[in-house]
């Protein structure tokens, strides 16, 4: 049951997938689980479609967590979001409006192979687990592998580096699977949200260059309101702005690719904290982190629904 699953601890990949299967059976009115492909090591890439079923046209929001394996708070938030959505659908008018007007495609663990490896072997693994025929090093940075200024500034051509862009764009089956899905559904996907850690930032395009996006006004105002809403929960300050100047320049990111491919509102969250624990955010901080982020995501969603074309 929803209440029987502990959302305030980090879960293994197997536990998360069992949880998804369970929700698919018990909440079929609001949840539909499907696979968009297989990872390099043959694991299914599961996505949850969340929202009230409707025969009429509905726009959608895509959310992915765990592109980088060691950023465990990301998958924890994706699970939290689903839990909150199901628990508050009837009682919270905002959530009800969100799920009635939109579908949410949620991928709780993008980099399934890397996530599993970070549980069993190397807690600080970042990349995928694909093999390279010429080098002993494994893995590609799944956030440098997208076809947008691929392998330019902020990415590395060397397979042993943590920002390795891969042998070619979308070389990673996980990236290819998500890219194919987003290409297929881009006409009704209105927003792309990706969850990372750590830096406490809310970022929007561009990552690969210093430039202002055409729809800056709506995106910036959504981000401004979201970080204010987030801060209202526990007083935690998030910075916001274009990724290139707020964080650093990086090419081949999923957020930039989604934007370039016609999804007008794309954001990347860098969740808690700012370095005190880094990737080792204690389980006791899962709840406050997720609670504040939940409000930010609801804020962004409602802003886009009401205020943006």
């Amino acid at each position, binding site marked *: 049951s929803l209440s029987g699953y502990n959302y305030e601890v980090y879960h293994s990949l197997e536990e998360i997938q069992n949880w998804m299967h369970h929700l698919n059976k018990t909440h079929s009115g609001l949840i539909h689980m499907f696979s968009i492909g297989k990872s390099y090591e043959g694991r299914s890439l599961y996505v949850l479609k969340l929202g009230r079923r409707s025969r009429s046209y509905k726009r959608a929001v895509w959310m992915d967590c765990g592109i980088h394996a060691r950023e465990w708070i990301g998958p924890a938030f994706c699970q939290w979001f689903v839990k909150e959505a199901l628990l508050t659908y009837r009682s919270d008018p905002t959530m009800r409006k969100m799920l009635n007007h939109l579908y949410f495609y949620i991928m709780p663990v993008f980099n399934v192979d890397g996530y599993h490896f970070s*549980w069993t*072997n190397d807690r600080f693994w970042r990349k995928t687990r694909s093999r390279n025929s010429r080098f002993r090093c494994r893995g590609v940075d799944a956030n440098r592998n997208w076809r947008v200024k691929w392998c330019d500034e*902020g990415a590395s051509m060397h397979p042993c580096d943590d*920002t390795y862009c891969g042998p070619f764009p979308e070389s990673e089956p996980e990236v290819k699977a998500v890219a194919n899905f987003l290409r297929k559904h881009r006409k009704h996907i209105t927003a792309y949200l990706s969850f990372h850690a750590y830096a406490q930032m809310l970022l929007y395009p561009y990552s690969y260059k210093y430039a202002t996006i055409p729809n800056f006004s709506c995106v910036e105002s959504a981000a401004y309101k979201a970080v204010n809403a987030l801060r209202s929960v526990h007083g935690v300050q998030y910075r916001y702005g274009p990724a290139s100047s707020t964080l650093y*320049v990086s090419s081949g990111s999923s957020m930039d690719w989604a934007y370039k491919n016609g999804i007008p509102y794309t954001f990347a969250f860098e969740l808690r904290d700012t*370095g005190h*624990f880094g990737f080792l*955010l204690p389980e006791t901080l899962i709840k406050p982190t997720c609670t504040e982020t939940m409000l930010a995501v609801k804020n962004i969603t409602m802003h886009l629904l009401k205020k943006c074309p």
Partner: protein
Amino acid sequence: HLYGNRYAGDKVIRFIPNTEEEAFVLKKICHQLKVDLWQPGGVSQISQGTVTDVHVPHNGSRTLLTFLEEANIQYKILIEDLQKVLEKGSSLPAWRSRR
């Protein structure tokens, strides 16, 4: 111990290069020590003003700290012992059984 206690004594150190020259030498030492870069994502992204967090194995931290002190580069130790933080932050018995 989790992960076979492999992170015992490992440190996470933060520095912010004040100049591009500092950034250059820091990139070099990070590459030589094969540090695990926590932020930014890659060594090439270390530049003047970039907040840089590196996870250094226990047998490399002394070398890095000595280098930083001799080069007069300000630093802060964010995590003194990674293994301790790792184990303190998780519900250990339950987590171990889940692993």
